[in-house]
């Protein structure tokens, strides 16, 4: 069940997407990353910055909830239909990886999710508590010898649809950070 609701954050509580993606610290063993504190809106801005984070059980229902939340964030950010489709699919694939390949549907394990509109980018993090994933070990799904494989396209699609994808080992588990840069607002509007 999805627990938390959207919050609107003042600008100075949110770091840039690039800092979020590239300077995240290594998590301590067995812990999910520390969530960014959420605060009520205290600084009206023209484009609301949003962040939400929550933990979900390792089920396909959870995947659906993450997908719906990502779609809502993408819609509110004003992405066109094609971009919204790609972002939502990438987040869905990351959630499927976390539930299926990471936590292996283990009811004792959860996935930790955060979704954020920084104003400059949409930033999604999905973390599992599984055995870990080495992204460099994944076979190339476009190689002729792999084209007829029934699996192995999820990470490829994520990388294709997002501007940045970062992997972080959590010991145990893996955290994926997906970044979609937003076009600068038209100053005339």
């Amino acid at each position: 069940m999805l627990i938390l609701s959207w919050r609107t954050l003042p600008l100075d509580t949110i770091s840039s997407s690039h800092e979020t993606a590239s300077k995240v610290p290594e998590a301590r063993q067995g812990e999910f990353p520390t969530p960014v504190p959420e605060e009520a809106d205290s600084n009206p801005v023209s484009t609301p910055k949003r962040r939400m984070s929550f933990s979900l059980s390792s089920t396909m229902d959870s995947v659906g909830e993450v997908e719906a939340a990502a779609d809502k964030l993408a819609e509110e950010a004003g992405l066109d239909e094609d971009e919204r489709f790609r972002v939502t699919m990438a987040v869905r694939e990351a959630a499927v990886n976390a539930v299926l390949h990471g936590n292996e549907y283990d009811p004792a394990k959860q996935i930790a999710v955060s979704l954020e509109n920084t104003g400059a980018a949409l930033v999604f993090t999905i973390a599992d508590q599984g055995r870990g994933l080495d992204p460099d070990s994944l076979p190339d799904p476009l190689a002729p010898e792999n084209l007829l494989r029934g699996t192995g396209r999820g990470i490829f699609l994520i990388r294709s649809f997002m501007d940045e994808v970062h992997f972080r080992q959590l010991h145990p588990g893996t955290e994926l950070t997906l970044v979609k840069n937003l076009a600068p607002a038209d100053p005339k509007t």
Partner: protein
Amino acid sequence: MALTIASRELDGVTVLDLSGRITLGEGSVQIRDAIRDLIGKGQKSILLNLGDVNYIDSSGLGELVSAFTTAKNQGAALKLLKLTKKVHDLLQLTKLYTVFDIFDDEASAIASFK
């Protein structure tokens, strides 16, 4: 929207009209079961009409590939009809467009099995 599958026969070809999403937990298993059922009954010509499939994820793509190879290994042929733009783009991105025989026109697709 969950996947629905309707089956019809045209000139010896089984056409499966699919509608909805083909994703992990929402259609992948249904397609697998439907193809295995047809192959088990000896059907050699199968056409998947994807005209009303508005969403497919990596699991769904994998299921289409598995259906294709299952049919081929049993001496049957599985082809695709009427891709939506999103599914078309995904098949191109993943190079699966080169794997399948794909048709926009049903009559041409049916004729190709002869």
